[in-house]
């Protein structure tokens, strides 16, 4: 099993690096909170991490728009919720959480990353295996706007 690569957030342009979460995190008809909590607790056997699945440019040396990320990583979701690294980290930090981003590419998802949280008060930065409600709230607030997916994956 490969060692998961955690990004050094200090090396990112936190106001420019786009993070995408497939789906509309503000859709009142979808059970968004449960979807996020359920996804977070899915362990990755390939990388050995827990966390929320997101898309982020795997090569920060070559900036990518959300349009380009959507085209490279086709998913079924009709909507995409957008944010930038700095907004997500800020929203989590205000509620006492730190954030780790792991590079976790998959065959069809070259820009797949896993967003994991820990308590800022924990010097060991122990990654949570479940997403707590305040962290869910922070993430939902951070991911805005929502846009139509310009390249939804063709349905079989």
């Amino acid at each position, binding site marked *: 099993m490969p060692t998961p690569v955690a990004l050094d957030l200090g090396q990112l342009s936190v106001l420019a690096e786009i993070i995408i979460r497939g*789906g509309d995190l503000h859709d009142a008809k*979808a*059970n968004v909170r*449960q*979807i996020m909590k359920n996804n977070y607790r*899915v*362990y990755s056997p390939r990388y050995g991490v827990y966390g929320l699945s997101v898309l982020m440019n795997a090569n920060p040396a070559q900036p990518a728009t959300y349009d380009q990320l959507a085209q490279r990583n086709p998913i079924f*979701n009709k909507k995409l919720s957008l944010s930038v690294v700095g907004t997500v980290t800020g929203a989590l930090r205000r509620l006492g959480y730190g954030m780790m981003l792991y590079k976790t590419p998959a065959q069809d998802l070259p820009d797949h990353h896993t967003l994991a949280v820990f308590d800022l008060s924990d010097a060991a930065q122990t990654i949570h295996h479940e997403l707590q409600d305040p962290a869910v709230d922070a993430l939902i607030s951070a991911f805005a706007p929502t846009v139509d997916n310009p390249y939804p994956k063709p349905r079989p």
Partner: protein
Amino acid sequence: MKKRVFADFNDLSDYTEAGIVQGVPLGLEEDIPELRQLQEHEDVILEMPGELQADGYVTCREIPQGHYWYGVVTGHVLYADELPADHGQAAS
């Protein structure tokens, strides 16, 4: 009636190390007790509740951490606004 199983389509891909084509990792039984109700190759509806769903089946792999389940998409992907008003709700 087929079981409804939570599946996050943000993870839909091939997972060649597990022999999975167009699948979604569902997780470890040890973490997600609902997965213990599944049977190998059981036909299910994979869904992100309120957003989209797909027909599929589930399959288990033994990994060092325990019993690990995948959902494999076989077709019939529907968005929530395409579903009849009386469609079932997920059990998991």
